[in-house]
């Protein structure tokens, strides 16, 4: 009878595990993380030495300003006002009083120290988790004093990676076409600068028109278009040595050159008898291979980061749309189906998205879609803008935007802008002159 009772109870009670109360947190805020960047401390002797070499009064605070600016521009961090800091930089670097930093609502804290060691710049920095009250990271660099800006960028990259989980993009450079003069007589030069607009340098003299510069994967070489006797030709430029060369000599017009992900090939479009097709050229043996074969205009090719696919735009459906094919030219698939004209597809370094320019009802948009064409998102809309280029971590796009010319032919300008994938963090990238056709390098410090 007892057994029977037990069995009865067993049947009657539906067995469930009564563990902990569980609450699923599936949403959070996307507000920038409040972070305090304490000026890097420096002893008096080092300070004087650096003042002589670099003509900067306090190199410690200059470096921390670079870090602060980078973090702010990323849109993911909110660097707090230094006036609110309660602790001196040198003491904070030894052991921060977390209550003080908590008081000003900082969630992370960067401290550090600069010193002059054997004519070199030595920078150490620490990243602290204020809420947990512990050190998250500590690193030190030694470099020539002139590299002080790069040290700031590298620190930002490390902090960014530690706090967001993805690689940074601050120790990078941007190559672009610097423009000056009235719209009808523009002087165009190749220019290169740091990602934040500093260290601007012109690479060509401006005698010939230059277009569409693109970095190779190591960011040592640039391929670009330059006009020679009114015909555009593809050039290669070594940034360190300054040597230039023409890539092959084609009888027709070549456009939109770009490196393959391994840097061994250049992919471009080449127009002959009014029909534009996509070609690749092996840089070692200069063998040219035809990839597409279609009576329509195929142009703007861009490799996927694994080199297995190519995206390009084509008007084979009647309007210009974006297509994806295998790198040997087979299996061509149209991926853009929205209203309007799509162009300049660029594959993200992360491989998950393709950025593009879209023209619809007289407006230009920069947008992204997944590589199968789904999930199209337009990030920004304007009178005229195009040519997006990805940051090396695939989070930010740089592009250029032109303003309208008024009836007197004035008011025209071309500026570089950046926008991140959220579509909210849009900023102008400072350049000394007007600029267009930007291309973002890969991370320099690896």
């Amino acid at each position, binding site marked *: 009878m007892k057994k029977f009772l037990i069995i009865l*109870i067993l049947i009657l*009670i*539906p067995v*469930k595990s009564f*563990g*902990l*109360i569980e*609450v699923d947190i599936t949403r959070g805020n996307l507000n920038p993380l409040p972070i305090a960047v304490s000026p890097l401390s420096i002893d008096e002797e080092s300070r004087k030495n650096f003042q002589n070499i670099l003509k900067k009064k306090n190199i410690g605070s200059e470096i921390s300003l670079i870090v602060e600016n980078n973090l702010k521009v990323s849109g993911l961090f909110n660097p707090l006002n230094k006036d609110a800091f309660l602790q001196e930089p040198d003491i904070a670097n030894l052991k921060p009083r977390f209550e003080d930093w908590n008081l000003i609502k900082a969630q992370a804290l960067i401290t550090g120290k600069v010193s002059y060691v054997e004519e070199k710049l030595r920078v150490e920095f620490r990243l602290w988790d204020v809420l947990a009250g512990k050190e998250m990271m500590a690193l030190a660099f030694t470099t020539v004093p002139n590299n002080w800006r790069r040290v700031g960028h590298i620190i930002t990259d490390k902090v960014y990676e530690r*706090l967001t*989980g993805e690689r940074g993009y601050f120790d990078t450079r941007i190559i672009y076409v610097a423009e000056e003069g009235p719209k009808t007589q523009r002087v165009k030069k190749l220019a290169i600068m740091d990602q934040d607009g500093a260290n601007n340098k012109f690479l060509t003299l401006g005698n010939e028109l230059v277009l569409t510069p693109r970095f190779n994967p190591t960011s040592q070489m640039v391929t670009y278009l330059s006009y020679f006797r009114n015909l555009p030709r593809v050039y290669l430029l070594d940034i360190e040595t300054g040597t230039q060369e023409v890539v092959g000599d084609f009888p027709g017009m070549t456009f939109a050159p770009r490196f393959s992900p391994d840097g061994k090939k250049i992919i471009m479009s080449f127009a002959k008898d009014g029909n534009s097709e996509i070609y690749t050229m092996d840089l070692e043996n200069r063998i040219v291979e035809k990839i597409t074969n279609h009576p329509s205009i195929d142009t703007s090719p861009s490799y996927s980061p694994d080199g297995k696919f190519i995206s390009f735009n084509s008007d084979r459906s009647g309007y210009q749309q974006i297509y994806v094919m295998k790198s040997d030219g087979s299996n061509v698939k149209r991926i853009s189906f929205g209203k309007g004209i799509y162009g300049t597809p660029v594959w993200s370094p992360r491989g998950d998205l393709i950025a593009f320019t879209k023209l619809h009802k007289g407006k230009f948009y920069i947008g992204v879609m997944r590589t199968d064409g789904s999930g199209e998102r337009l990030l920004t809309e304007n009178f005229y803008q195009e040519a997006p280029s990805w940051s090396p971590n695939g989070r930010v796009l740089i592009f250029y935007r032109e303003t309208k010319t008024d009836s007197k032919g004035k008011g025209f300008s071309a500026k570089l802008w950046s926008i991140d994938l959220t579509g909210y963090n849009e900023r102008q990238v400072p350049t000394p002159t007007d600029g267009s056709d930007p291309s973002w390098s890969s991370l320099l410090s690896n």
Partner: protein
Amino acid sequence: MNRSIVISSVLHLFVIFLTAMSLPFLAKKPIDLPPIVSVELIQITEKTNIPFAPKAKKIIEKVKEKEKKLVSEQAPPKKVKKIKPDAVPMPEDKVKKVEKIKEDKQNPEKIDNEVKQVSEFEKEELFDPNNIAALIDKSKESKAETLKKNPDLSQDQNKNFENTGLSLSEEDALKAQIFGCWSIPLGLPYNENLLVRIKLELKPDGSVINSEILDHARMNKPGQGFYKVLAESALRAIKLCQPLRVPSTGYERWKELQLNFDAREMLEG
């Protein structure tokens, strides 16, 4: 001979009856979607709140009369809900043993997770199934009626209660608070399985005594950088949110709490 056949058939019928009664309950489980319930609840409160609006009193009074039936249908399960935690414990020993044996056999893995939790709190939690059983016996008739008329609602409410231990509004208050504190690291990949489970020990005022990441080993494994970043952001959110907005009553229920942080939904959109 005849007797044993009769006994056998009666027993068989009894077993068939039991399975028929209990199986549909199990089978319906996956169909119930919690979001739908919350919407329904909001609508109900809206309806019941309307009578206090000055304008349409008369019309609404008529509606109210009609709705009275509805309200009465919805009321019983709520009452049942309240009775459960306060109900008198059953004779425990036998049942407890049975429970333990069953768990041993069926879920050998689970024990690892729950070893730490076999505290008094845990034991008290174990009484609940018995209480429910007791209630089922007592309130079979009334419950059967409500089940017939409004099966979805009552089952959902029960289910919600049993699984979370917090009512919808209590849970929502806590969620809303943590949503506000949690800065999601935007660089995380959305296509990876990144779920951070954190066990909390709470004081009655909602401040956190101890927080523990349940997959702690994953934190320092190579190649799990994203997991670490997410886990740290979750811990920061909890620290920032202190004291947590917990219900003012029933400390025993929620003095240990597990939060599951999942950013996929946000990162995809």
